[in-house]
């Protein structure tokens, strides 16, 4: 087995393992199934790490069945593996691994079905991250979506899980139909499905109505998966009901893959035709990102249901990622990459903590549990550390990523981005810290008694354990340490900047894929400034301050309280918009597509 045969393995290995589990899993004991699942996830992680290392020299191109392009015309299907794709596949594999270890003591009677579904999910995510073919991208997108719908509804005896999975499935299916319409239009124009080939055909041509429409459909379709406002409604419902180790995958890597697809398609296909007005596009992305970041942050802070709180925090972070990628510079994209890694590990750890709380107390409602979790001191420390890490405290990876993005935005003259980041980090980190103080220390007082959150939640575990099993805490620690490692590994920033440079160089991508030219390594940029640590520390402090403010709001002077009360109607309106009704969600998707289409038509008209 040589290195050249590696590329399809991160997809093939989990699929084979899943098929094996489905075929003979009913005859195997639970521990054998667990060991098989853990081994497979570890093997995929190893493969992805190997591919990541190889791809640092330049994209690895693999043609299925040896159908290589001739004279620059590609007919076959290819995997094109660059560091961004490989690192996302690695992130997915590591989160799956942590989830499997955690499941050692977690589920009642799941049988082989749960690990088989998760492995299918993993294979699809890896394929999605590694492919270089537009239709292949769609197929893996659908596959990971279907696995995700089924995983959301694993607790099939609960009506809430069913309805959460239902709105998730309907919203995301509409997203994937939009993507497919866009693919069909592009194929009609170019007669190609390979990303590099489509890009070559469209390069240098002015963007006409058909190309703009295809871009709007593809961008909007993948944005549904990326849970950007106003496409985000499904996310909180699905996260609230899905088992904790599944939420880890949803928040940690699946929604990020939605954004990855938008960026991949933009830089390989549309960058050569849509960039007539790059500044206009940048402003649109920054505005859209800010909207998601602020709205998600506010809703996160207003939540008392731990899993929904973390879900809204993911929406906020997706907004920040869009801001980073929306700078359309290598620095911004590199920062986004680092931030995605740091956030994925930290958020994953926090979701696992929420799962432990759910196991112990049969609830994840902050008000109901106030002070009752004090016995779990170790868990409390982990949640507090996760909250601080989420707010971007140095030296976690979230801090490095944020600093890079803020710097990139400042270079472009958008200094206000730092303020948005400070606010959103404080809101999302502060919400977690507030919940930690309430749960484990019993601080604060119960407010908002008629909470919008459900009162009943089923435990997902076999028994109520007298003590939290160590095997459930270990993955949490593992993920937080990985989040720390992202921030402490000195070479990462340089590597990310090189990878981002290559990611945004469509000419290089095309020559590597279509003409198998040996790529030249792009140069990295300068070191990140130490100012990032200051900003990170400031946002952690702000998060702690916000948490204290929320906990002890009854001791504030009454003038301040009245000020706070004026925000109530606004919050109620926001809550009312999240109605839990599928039809409403689809209306928002249609409105989002219309808005995106309007902006893009304006941009194209100006160019």
């Amino acid at each position: 087995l040589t290195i050249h045969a590696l590329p399809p393995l991160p997809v093939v290995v989990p699929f084979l393992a899943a098929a094996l589990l489905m075929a003979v899993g009913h005859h195997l004991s639970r521990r054998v199934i667990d060991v098989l699942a853990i081994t497979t996830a570890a093997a995929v992680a190893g493969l992805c790490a190997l591919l990541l290392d190889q791809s640092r020299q330049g994209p690895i191109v693999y043609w299925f069945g040896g159908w290589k392009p001739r004279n620059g015309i590609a007919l076959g299907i290819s995997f094109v593996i660059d560091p961004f794709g490989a690192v996302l596949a690695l992130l997915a594999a590591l989160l799956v691994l942590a989830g499997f270890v955690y499941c050692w003591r977690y589920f009642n009677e799941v049988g082989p079905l749960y690990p088989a579904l998760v492995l299918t999910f993993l294979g699809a995510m890896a394929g999605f991250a590694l492919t270089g073919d537009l239709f292949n991208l769609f197929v893996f997108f659908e596959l990971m979506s279907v696995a995700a719908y089924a995983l959301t509804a694993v607790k099939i005896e609960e009506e809430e899980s069913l309805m959460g999975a239902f709105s998730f499935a309907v919203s995301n299916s509409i997203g994937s139909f939009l993507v497919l319409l866009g693919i069909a239009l592009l194929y009609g124009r170019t007669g190609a499905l390979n990303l590099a080939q489509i890009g070559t055909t469209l390069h240098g041509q002015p963007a006409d109505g058909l190309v703009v429409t295809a871009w709007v459909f593809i961008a909007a379709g993948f944005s549904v998966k990326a849970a950007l406002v106003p496409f985000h409604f499904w996310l909180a419902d699905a996260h609230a009901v899905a088992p904790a180790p599944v939420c880890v995958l949803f928040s940690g890597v699946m929604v990020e893959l939605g954004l990855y697809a938008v960026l991949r398609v933009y830089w390989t296909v549309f960058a050569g035709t849509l960039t007539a007005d790059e500044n206009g596009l940048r402003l649109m992305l920054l505005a859209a990102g800010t909207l998601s970041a602020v709205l998600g942050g506010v809703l996160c802070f207003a939540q008392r249901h731990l899993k929904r709180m973390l879900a809204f925090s993911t929406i906020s972070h997706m907004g920040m990622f869009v801001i980073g990628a929306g700078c359309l510079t290598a620095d911004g994209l590199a920062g986004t990459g680092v931030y995605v890694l740091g956030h994925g590990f930290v958020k994953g750890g926090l979701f696992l903590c929420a799962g432990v709380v759910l196991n112990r107390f049969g609830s994840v409602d902050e008000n109901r549990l106030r002070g009752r979790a004090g016995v779990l001191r170790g868990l409390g420390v982990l949640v507090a550390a996760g909250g601080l890490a989420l707010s971007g405290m140095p030296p976690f990876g979230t801090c490095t990523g944020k600093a890079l993005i803020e710097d990139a935005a400042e270079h472009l003259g958008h200094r206000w981005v730092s303020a948005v980041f400070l606010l959103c980090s404080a809101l999302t980190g502060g919400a977690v810290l507030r919940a930690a103080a309430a749960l484990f220390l019993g601080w604060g007082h119960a407010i908002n008694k008629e909470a919008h959150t459900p009162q009943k939640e089923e435990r997902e575990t076999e028994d109520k354990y007298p003590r939290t099993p160590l095997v459930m805490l270990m993955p949490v620690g593992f993920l937080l340490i990985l989040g720390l490692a992202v921030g402490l590994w000195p070479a990462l920033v340089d590597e990310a900047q090189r990878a981002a440079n290559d990611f945004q160089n469509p000419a290089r991508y095309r020559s590597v894929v279509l003409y198998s030219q040996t790529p030249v390594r792009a140069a990295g940029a300068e070191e990140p400034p130490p100012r990032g640590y200051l900003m990170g520390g400031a946002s952690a402090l702000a998060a702690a301050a916000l948490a204290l403010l929320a906990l002890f709001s009854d001791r504030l002077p009454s003038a301040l309280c009245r000020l706070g009360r004026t925000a109530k109607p606004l919050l109620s309106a926001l809550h009312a918009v999240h109605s839990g009704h599928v039809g409403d969600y689809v209306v928002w998707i249609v409105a989002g597509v219309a808005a995106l289409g309007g902006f893009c038509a304006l941009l194209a008209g100006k160019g």
Partner: protein
Amino acid sequence: MSFLPYVVAAWLFLIGLYGIITSRHLVHLIVCLSVVQSSTYVLLLSIGYRIGAGAPIFADVPPGTPAVDPVVQALTLTDIVVGATVMALLLALAAQVHKRRKSLDPQHLRPMRG
């Protein structure tokens, strides 16, 4: 090539979305989703269609015989398989909902709010 198939595709997409938005029954909603999906079939097939061309089967015909584009047909087939999976899963979810609540009206089945 006439515009008619493209108009039909757009119509199917929009009328399906309208059905989903206004639906008061989960099974009806799922059928509407499959109507939306049909628009992708129509669009794909009409992109590959050529007037007067035969099926893309190249046995027993002289080289150079015009044929419709086989790629979009393969895409449509894949799309149909994907659609069948999603519909089956959604119908299974709807059946479970009905078992627990004896109702399929999404207005009465909101998961949670805020």
